[in-house]
């Protein structure tokens, strides 16, 4: 088995994946970071150093949009963390009950929104929330809550939260499944040992199961973070590239798209687009590092 010289078969096995991955993913990633240092003058590309970043953070027109998008993105992420993940964990906790009937049916049904595209989800909710169609106002009226209704997607103060909740509705299946898997892997003896000590029901969830599934909650948090700071489709589908009303739903993805491609009267600028992409890269990198070095290493993992 151990023959000297170059092992050609190893190279043949590795080459296609490494080539495609390097050429289409890694190289463009670094090239985008590089393009952020250039600008175009009279259709000639010129090196300008950090000038684009100075514009992005220094020019009030740009920096205003950037901080707005970043702030909105954090709010979007915050809603996911406080709504999506707790609901996902709660559903998983109920589903993992050992004698629950129809568990597979519930699981399959609750996961349905996750497989739909943003286009379907965005338009479907846009129609349902629309004041023209009136499904939402009628249903609220039937519940005696008519005063709660507002054209949620059209109001600056509600639009972003509404979109975040739509996204929560769509993706709640993912934390549910991952936590469900983690809960199933807890051995029965551990829970029975708890019961012997009188820890049952809710107490058993808080004191035994929750600490054991913390690593999975950590993974879900970082997946949510990366997904949210890379989001674009839902906002674009429902509110368009302008992320209305009045940029109140603008997040980094839509901001980058607008800058890169241009809209209305503003021309597209790939170099400013690259600068924003570099900012997104930095933010995602910081998030992933905080997770890998700050959170993951501190979570205790239990081997059964």
């Amino acid at each position, binding site marked *: 088995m151990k023959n000297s010289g170059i092992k050609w078969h190893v190279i043949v*096995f590795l080459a296609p994946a490494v080539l495609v991955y390097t050429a289409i993913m890694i190289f463009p*990633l670094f090239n985008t970071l590089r393009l952020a240092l250039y600008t175009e003058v009279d259709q000639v590309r010129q090196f300008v150093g950090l000038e684009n970043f100075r514009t992005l953070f220094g020019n009030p027109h740009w920096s205003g949009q950037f901080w707005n998008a970043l702030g909105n993105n954090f709010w979007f992420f915050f809603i996911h963390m406080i709504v999506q993940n707790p609901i996902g964990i709660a*559903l998983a906790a109920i589903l993992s009950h050992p004698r629950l009937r129809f568990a597979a049916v519930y699981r399959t049904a609750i996961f349905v929104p996750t497989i739909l595209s943003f286009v*379907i989800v965005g338009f479907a909710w846009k129609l349902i929330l629309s004041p023209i169609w009136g499904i939402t106002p009628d249903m609220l009226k039937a519940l005696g809550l008519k005063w709660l209704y507002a054209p949620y997607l059209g109001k600056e103060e509600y639009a972003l939260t509404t979109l975040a909740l739509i996204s929560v509705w769509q993706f709640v299946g993912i934390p549910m499944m991952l936590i469900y898997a983690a809960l199933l892997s807890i051995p029965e003896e551990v829970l029975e040992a708890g019961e012997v000590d009188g820890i049952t029901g809710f107490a058993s969830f808080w004191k035994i199961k929750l600490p054991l599934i913390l690593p999975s909650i950590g993974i879900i948090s970082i997946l949510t973070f990366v997904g949210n700071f890379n989001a674009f489709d839902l906002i674009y589908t429902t509110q368009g590239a302008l992320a209305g009303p009045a940029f109140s739903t603008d997040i980094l993805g839509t901001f980058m798209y607008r800058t890169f491609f241009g809209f209305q009267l503003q021309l597209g600028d790939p170099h400013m687009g690259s600068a924003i*992409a570099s900012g997104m*890269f930095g933010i995602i990198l910081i998030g992933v590092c905080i997770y890998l070095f700050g959170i993951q290493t501190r979570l205790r993992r239990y081997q059964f």
Partner: protein
Amino acid sequence: MSKARNNPLNSFAAHAALITYTLIALFPVFVILVNSFKTRKAIFRDPLALPEADTFTLIGYQTVLKQGDFFLYFQNSMIVTVVSLTLVLLFGAMAAFALAEYKFKGNLLMGLYLALGIMIPIRIGTVAILEMMVSSGLVNTLWALILVYTAQGLPLAVFILSEFMRQVSDDLKNAGRIDGLSEYTIFFRLVLPLVRPAMATVAVFNMIPIWNDLWFPLILAPAEETKTLTLGSQVFIGQFVTDWNAVLSALSMAILPVMILYVIFSRQLIRGITSGAVK
């Protein structure tokens, strides 16, 4: 098992909670599907009613089929998804085998390099990807999408598949080697069939994001003849906003293929997630 965990009241509460959430999850899909078969008047008068003899119509579907080239979009989505998945599985399995089977210098480093892409989204590099596709003439071809999705799917595929390939018995491979099989034959004939369940998991994980993606079709292949179903429905619905029958029918037609795929693969998908493939 103790009584505390089989309390009928608890079980009732559990079902009530799950049924409530199931209704929330399925309600929008139900509303869209049901109303796509109703006349415009009925859509507005009673949105929650099922279509009846006098409110039933297929006019929305007729508009969609006449105005939008949905069969072409569907075909494009199909080609992109199937070819990308095939390449992800083939290239991913080959690389995973190399990493799991052979000890060579830089093995660990190569593994880490390929794993980088699990956390860093490929969209960050969009500006440079578009530039590259323009200069190579691949823009507005399905190949642009296939290459991007292949690159996007590889990191997780290599990661998951190499975990599984480590579990394939060495005795089997060494027996093959003694019989004089080449490394390629060992991979394709002995190892691949054994990791088929893991390959299916990887395929299902990749299928949904590829099929549903809007960003890359919008940027790399927006031409009429290369539109995917997702982009096609987005554009179509944008143009027909006021034609409620057409919009609802277009949405239903976009839901249908994913639902069929989901019904076929849901068991595989759920087993894949719950088997802890994504730890």
